[in-house]
């Protein structure tokens, strides 16, 4: 939850640094609340897990904090789930992580999602190859990362040399599609870095088809991300009617070296708050988990009720035991309020009145009720 700012600074950009909650400890060291969890994972791999053989597959789930209120009254505490594959280079590892991210979105219950895959090196290759004075080049970089294509166009207009790279930069927002986009781009780039990136994208696309994700994956050569951080394959997950990516990830082979254990790495994060927003907006919003048994009691039935509740929980059922005695009529009202599947009314040590939704009440000994419920017999 808490990290030294000097440690975090090794792994995050100035913009993210500004958004950290920072404070001083008793010795005057500046520390911060975690704003993201990849850097803590990198520190873990280079520190406590130094002796563990690579590759390592690590995951996390938890809150991150940001001072940024945002324009949408975003919460300052948001929840992230993520995974990192450290120590594995190559496209098989890239595809593994993308597939895991896609399966996470699928498991969350969103009805429709898509994953766009791009490559940081495609951009770096173009920037190497494009013939521009250095100061214009850095302005181009700024305009592109700000997604300001009006500024980009006017910067490139002023340069006499027009090349295929110029055209590619201007068409960045539209470089999206299936495998056909690789051929189209391949015909335009004339530099090693971009060509290698296109070859890797072709491999990853094939691997993702083998993972069974051909329907949800697209290529996006114009993906704009933090190009100082990402070194290879990058990707973003989108869902219906959410204006921002719900999952983001990619390869960051340079980060671990900054913590003293050089290793290739790739990973992703899912923004749980955005997933929740999608689910609650969908036609079938998620329901709270159903309670299997509401255990009521009257007379001397409390002890039998507590035993019955424990037994059912041992078998993985959700059971709630009433906090007060109720007669049978009152217990039915309570049962409906709880919304449980079964009402188990313990009348004494040896008799349970069992009512299931849509069925009439039966009287049985508690062991038989537990046995039948645990065995899935109504």
């Amino acid at each position, binding site marked *: 939850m808490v990290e030294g700012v000097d440690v975090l600074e090794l792994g995050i950009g100035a913009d993210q640094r500004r958004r950290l909650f920072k404070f001083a400890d008793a010795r005057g060291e500046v520390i911060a609340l975690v704003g993201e969890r990849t850097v803590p994972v990198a520190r873990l791999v280079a520190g406590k897990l130094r002796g563990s053989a690579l590759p390592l597959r690590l995951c996390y789930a938890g809150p991150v904090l940001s001072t940024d209120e945002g324009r949408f009254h975003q919460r300052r505490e948001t929840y992230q789930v993520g995974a990192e594959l450290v120590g594995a280079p190559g496209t098989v590892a890239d595809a593994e992580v993308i597939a895991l991210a896609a399966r996470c979105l699928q498991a969350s219950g969103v009805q429709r999602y898509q994953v766009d895959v791009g490559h940081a090196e495609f951009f770096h290759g173009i920037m190497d190859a494009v013939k521009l004075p250095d100061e214009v080049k850095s302005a181009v970089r700024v305009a592109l990362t700000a997604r300001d*294509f009006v500024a980009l166009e006017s910067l490139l207009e002023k340069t006499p040399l027009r090349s295929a790279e110029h055209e590619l930069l201007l068409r960045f927002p539209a470089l999206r599609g299936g495998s056909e986009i690789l051929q189209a781009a391949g015909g335009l780039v004339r530099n090693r870095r971009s060509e290698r990136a296109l070859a890797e994208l072709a491999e990853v696309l094939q691997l993702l088809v083998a993972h069974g994700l051909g329907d949800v994956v697209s290529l996006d050569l114009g993906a704009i991300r933090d190009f100082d951080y990402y070194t290879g394959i990058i990707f973003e997950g989108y869902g219906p*009617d959410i*204006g921002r990516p719900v999952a983001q990830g990619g390869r960051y082979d340079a980060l671990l070296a900054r913590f003293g254990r050089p290793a290739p790495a790739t990973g992703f994060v899912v923004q749980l708050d955005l997933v929740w927003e999608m689910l609650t907006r969908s036609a079938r919003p998620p329901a709270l988990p159903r309670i299997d048994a509401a255990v009521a009691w009257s007379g001397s039935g409390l002890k039998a009720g507590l035993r019955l509740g424990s037994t059912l929980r041992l078998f993985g059922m959700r059971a709630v035991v009433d906090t007060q005695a109720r007669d049978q009529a009152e217990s039915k009202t309570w049962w409906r309020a709880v919304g449980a599947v079964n009402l188990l009314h313990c009348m004494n040590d040896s008799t349970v009145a069992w009512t299931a939704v849509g069925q009439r009440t039966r009287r049985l000994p508690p062991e038989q009720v537990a046995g039948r419920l645990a065995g899935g017999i109504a």
Partner: protein
Amino acid sequence: VTAHKTLAGKVSIAVPTGALMPGALRLLARAGLARLTGEELGRQLLVDRSGVRVILVRPADVPAYVDHGAADLGIVGKDILWETPGAHYELVDLGFGACQMVLAVPIASRLNGPETWPPQLRVATKYPRTAAAWFEARGQAVEVVPLHGSVELAPQVGLVDAIVDLTATGRTLKENRLRVTATLGASTARLIANQASLKTRTDAVQAAVGRLREAVAK
């Protein structure tokens, strides 16, 4: 299902009220996207046409609608974008609505170039972020007084030394006995797009962008 939900296959465009509205509506008509009068849109705020939904919002709210995905596209002045940067794509300079963001002082003021600025300058503006960033880039300490209207009045009554404001013709400045000492930037109407709309409904959104781009070039 929320009301702002974008409709499958339909592209929604946020159009600003005020000075840019006539130009925006002319452009939508020229692009063949929607033929609408100002009165019609002003009365309904949300108009559905085949393939397009047009929504009318306050100029400063256009980026919020687009960044949140409530609109796929937005027409908005560059002055607003300086003030509210976001994750949207700025795609096309639409050419109309030209004006300048200027630093202006009372005609009688001794203030002129940077060498005449006091150690701490007091500036009133409707664009606090833009003003602060501009002075910071020049190493000038500045106290920005954010105002919501009639900014021209502030230096005349001694509230501030100067103002940062948008001007098209310079007439309002002249009427208020102010003169321009620096230009912070030139603004025109821009077409912006939601980042997810470009990725999730690429064909429909890119088609609309293409038609608007052609209409500008005409």
